């Protein structure tokens, strides 16, 4: 391969990566952006973003046909915040739930068990939906934002994976 061809390929890859990175930055919801702008970088706050390819690969590696069963996932964002960080700023989770509602997220499923509460919200889009999952535990709150189209069966399974197998 000639050096000019190599340069062209490198340029193309760079442009594609830049495009992917820029699309990833605006792909988050306003609600998630608010959460991240307020808490990311704080002590004990952990966050990550994974693109669809990485998620699908991880699901594929996790075995079975989990990736196919769940549906299409474009990207996943996650932020874990200690409750103390929220309290120390005089904020409440109920306030954030109002932000979610104002941002067009509707609650679809809520499961509460042994002091842990998992609530899933949905923001419908033209092509992709956004799913916001809030996990409230005694000491921390974890928020997941998933963009894609999740199979409703997988969402329905969310509640049954808890108890009620009487």
């Amino acid at each position, binding site marked *: 391969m000639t050096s000019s061809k190599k340069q062209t390929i490198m340029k193309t890859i760079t442009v594609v990566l830049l495009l992917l990175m820029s699309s990833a930055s605006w792909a988050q919801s306003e609600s998630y952006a608010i959460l991240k702008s307020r808490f990311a970088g704080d002590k004990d706050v952990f966050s990550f973003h994974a693109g669809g390819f990485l998620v699908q690969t991880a699901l594929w590696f996790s075995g079975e046909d989990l990736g196919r069963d769940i549906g299409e996932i474009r990207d996943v964002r996650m932020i874990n915040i200690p409750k103390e960080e929220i309290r120390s700023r005089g904020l409440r989770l109920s306030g954030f739930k109002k932000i979610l509602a104002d941002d067009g997220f509707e609650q679809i499923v809520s*499961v509460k068990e042994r*002091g842990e509460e998992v609530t899933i919200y949905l923001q419908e889009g033209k092509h992709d939906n956004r799913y916001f999952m809030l996990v409230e535990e005694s000491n921390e709150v974890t928020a997941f934002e998933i963009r894609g189209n999740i199979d*409703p069966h997988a969402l329905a399974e969310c*509640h049954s994976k*808890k*108890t*009620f*197998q*009487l």
Partner: protein
Amino acid sequence: MKKIIVLIVIVAGANSAFAQDAISKFFTKYQNDESFSQVTVSSKMFSLFTNMEATTPEDKEVLEAISKLKGLRILGKENTSDARALYKEAFSLIPKNEFEELMSVRDKDKDMKFYIKESGGKISELVMIMGGTQDFMVMSLFGEIDLKQVSKIGHKMNVDGLEKLEKMDEHKKQPNSKDN
């Protein structure tokens, strides 16, 4: 006169609010008790099933039935010594003038009761109460309910217990299967 009208409106409003969910009181009482597990499914969740493509006519019927549901609430407690007491308490809270018993099942050590609220030939709420020696569960499914599809809905939504409704005709024919 105005006072009477206001009073009637308030009473009617209170009745309709209560009628929306037979076990609301029960849920309200135990919703902050961490020893209980709770599940709430909104109508939005059910509406997601309408976007799915049905592969068979049977699937289509089930998806149509799911799309008419407005909500599902489940409250349960496992490994508890007061399962029987909770079962009796939930049972006592069912407004018997609004609900009729659909079916009663005894399966090993578990008792199950199914109640429906019917108006104009349409079922608007299905309540299932389940109590064993150690486990308890109460479930309220509301919206426009097609009883023929409920057991299949239970399968799709992974709600245990609803499959018992498949045997509804059998149980109705066997009065001995009723307990309590």
